[in-house]
């Protein structure tokens, strides 16, 4: 099977330029795929799917027979990111997370940025993710958001934009690692020829970072991953990360606060826990501090945390910076704390609580994407150009009733990549979620991240709950990449 008849159809394509020529760095891949015998690629795609099924990398399909499990759809053609392009993104992400961490720390302590009027105080203090019990907390080394998965998209202009910051419990990194494993199994020689930056050491880096967080004086810290349980849709990932790090995976019922310390119940009695990588929302962590009806939580956990008896990653309260209203101010936040211009841009955002913006939004609903500030995962959203008049009218009413809860952004022409459809390739829209580890001394960005694909033709929704799949993301090594001639790089260098 060959790419001969593949068309970019006027979209920015990650592998081909406007003349349908392979971009620098993608040429080796394209050449190799073109050289495969007919039907070989389909065969390997099937082999990869079977491998995923046997590995049990599946999610439950709700509302169906309990027996039905599906693999997270996977497309065999990798997405390629060139070294220089990545270098710039990495810088942008590090800058952004450093500023956001400073922001969260400030909000729960001195609130200088609010006093200086850079971000409106009422916006921050009414944000859904703002947690009163976190006021005055001083997490070890001042780090709040240890693990982040920032959502990026590339627009038709070839630029990457930040769509969401995901500072609470971002998921998906396990798919990055498993996709890579599958690709190395199915395409060993192509992989080798392309010189790709490794992702496999993520669990070691994660463990190292978590161990660094241990309370003072603990020599060999007990690190655990905390999952809401086997029925959580990201359970596979929780279990995978615990396994790869070689640490226990605990549920709320395994933990107890005993004499002020967090302990877990073992076959030999109680054992102290020093660091918790929690994959459970703030609200459910401790019924004494947050939601009293939480059945999953550990009573007294927050007290132990505030006394420094146990470390939590991420710290509770980070969701305040995930609020889409706060998102609109990230460029100002970067400038305020770092004195720098943002390297990676926000998507232009209209804040419906500002009168001018609201007026514009209401007049242009058919051109805009409207988002509820507290929702994620593609819910609570209006895609104006694809919506019916009735849907738009409904959103107009909602915006007028609660302007604080809505933002709007222009509809982006998300970039595309080729995916295998039966016996040929077709372009599909993608986003990119790199993962960032904020350690005691340094910030690490996993080269690549999760490329999510909207597998439905023409669809812009990449979420796995709504028909999305994924691809391996190959960030090339600086020396191994192709010629740096593509137009995007020119643009990013101009900044």
């Amino acid at each position, binding site marked *: 099977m060959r790419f001969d008849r593949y068309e970019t159809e006027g979209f920015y394509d990650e592998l081909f330029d406007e003349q349908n020529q392979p971009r620098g760095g993608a040429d080796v891949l394209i050449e190799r795929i073109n050289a495969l015998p007919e039907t070989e690629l389909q065969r390997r795609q099937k082999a990869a799917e079977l491998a995923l*099924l*046997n590995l049990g990398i599946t999610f439950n399909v709700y509302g169906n027979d309990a027996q039905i499990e599906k693999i997270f759809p996977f497309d065999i053609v990798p997405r390629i990111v060139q070294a220089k392009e990545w270098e710039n993104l990495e810088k942008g992400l590090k800058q952004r997370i450093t500023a956001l961490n400073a922001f969260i720390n400030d909000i729960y302590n001195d609130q200088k940025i609010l006093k200086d009027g850079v971000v409106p105080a009422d916006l921050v203090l009414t944000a859904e993710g703002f947690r009163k019990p976190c006021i005055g907390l001083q997490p070890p080394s001042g780090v709040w958001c240890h693990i982040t998965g920032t959502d990026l998209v590339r627009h038709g202009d070839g630029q990457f934009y930040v769509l969401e910051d995901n500072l609470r419990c971002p998921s998906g990194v396990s798919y990055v690692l498993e996709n890579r494993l599958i690709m190395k199994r199915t395409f060993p020689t192509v992989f080798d020829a392309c010189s790709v930056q490794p992702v496999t050491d993520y669990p070691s880096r994660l463990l190292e970072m978590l161990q660094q967080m241990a309370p003072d004086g603990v020599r060999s810290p007990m690190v655990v991953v905390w999952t809401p349980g086997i029925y959580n849709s990201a359970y596979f990932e929780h279990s995978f990360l615990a396994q790869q790090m070689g640490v226990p995976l605990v549920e709320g019922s395994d933990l107890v606060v005993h*004499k002020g310390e967090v302990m877990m119940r073992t*076959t030999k009695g109680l054992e102290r826990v020093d660091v918790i990588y929690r994959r459970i929302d703030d609200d459910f962590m401790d019924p004494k501090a947050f939601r009293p009806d939480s059945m999953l939580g550990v009573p007294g956990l927050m007290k132990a945390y505030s006394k420094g008896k146990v470390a939590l990653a991420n710290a509770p309260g980070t969701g305040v910076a995930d609020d889409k209203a706060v998102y609109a101010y990230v460029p100002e936040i970067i400038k305020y704390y770092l004195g720098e211009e943002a390297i990676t841009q926000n998507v232009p955002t209209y804040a419906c609580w500002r009168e001018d913006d609201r007026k514009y939004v209401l007049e242009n609903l058919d051109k805009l994407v409207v988002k509820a500030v507290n929702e994620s995962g593609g819910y609570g959203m209006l895609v104006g150009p694809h919506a019916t008049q009735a849907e738009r009218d409904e959103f107009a009413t909602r915006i007028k009733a609660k302007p604080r809860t809505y933002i709007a952004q222009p509809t982006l022409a998300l970039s595309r990549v080729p995916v295998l459809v039966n016996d040929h390739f077709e372009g599909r829209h993608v986003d990119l979620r790199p993962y960032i580890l904020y350690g005691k001394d340094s910030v690490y960005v996993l080269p690549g991240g999760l490329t999510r694909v909207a597998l439905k033709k023409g669809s812009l929704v990449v979420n796995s709950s709504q028909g999305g799949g994924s691809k391996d993301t190959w960030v090339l090594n600086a020396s191994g990449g192709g010629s740096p001639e593509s137009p995007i790089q020119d643009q990013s260098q101009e900044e």
Partner: protein
Amino acid sequence: MLSRVANSIYWLNRYIERAENVARFIDANYHMALDIPDNASAQWQPLINTTGDHELFEELYGEVNRENAIEFLVFDRNNPNSIYSCVRAARENARSVREYISSEMWEQINTFYLMINAAAKETLMDLPHKIFVDIMTASHTFIGITDSTMNHGEGWHFGRMGRMLERADKTTRILDVKYYILLPSVEYVGSSYDNLLWGALLRSASAFEMYRKRHGRINPRKIVDFLLLDPHFPRAVHYSIITAIISMNNITGSPRGTFANKAEQKLGRLLAEFNFASLDEVFEIGLHEYLDQTQTRINGVGSEIHEVFFSPHTIDS
């Protein structure tokens, strides 16, 4: 290790062992039934009895025949001890401790489950031997993978202890039911039927060849001796208890012959019973009574294991 994790590993091994035993029962029985055409359906009732689920069977199916016996024992989702249900339960347990067991173990259990899930009844009826061999092989593969990929630490010992207790229980059950079915046929002694029936009993425990090597000619008492009291045959009750207590001692750190908790104490007593049992005594008490007592004692050990290791004790915070 976490109590919850120990519990899951213990049960996942019990379920795999249970599935394997059900496959053994059916396979041996199927072939035996083919050799005794007149009496074919009568052979399926004792099989249902072996599993201890005859009441559920009656409720769901009524009369016993080959088709519904196999349906019930292999596929029926309403039967918690069908092969399907066991493998599914094993997988659910494995899923909750994926981070603790090795990836290879998980992959094997998952593949095992996918195989059972995909197995079609029709092909089974046509070619029954294959799937039962596949099931036994899958179980053996799992044990092999476990032994060679997982640390032989606490978790591994919980798994092996579970497997051994399950095996001891299943061997007593098969011996109990079969013995009473086969006993009335004393007039067959020495006939080809006799060899056939006792051969099937041995085969269902994969014991035929090892028995031959150990005792030679088919002899009902020696068969009982072999399956119950042999300390070396890996499916014998005695062997299973010996192995279970080695794991128990490893978990608690107790020296051999001592105990640190009630579970270990009960298991130790049971082992002492088997160490000093004689076949004459067994028959004096009555084989059925003896097997029944043994099952009750194995269950007792199981409950204590739950109490000592798995129960979340309340703690004042």
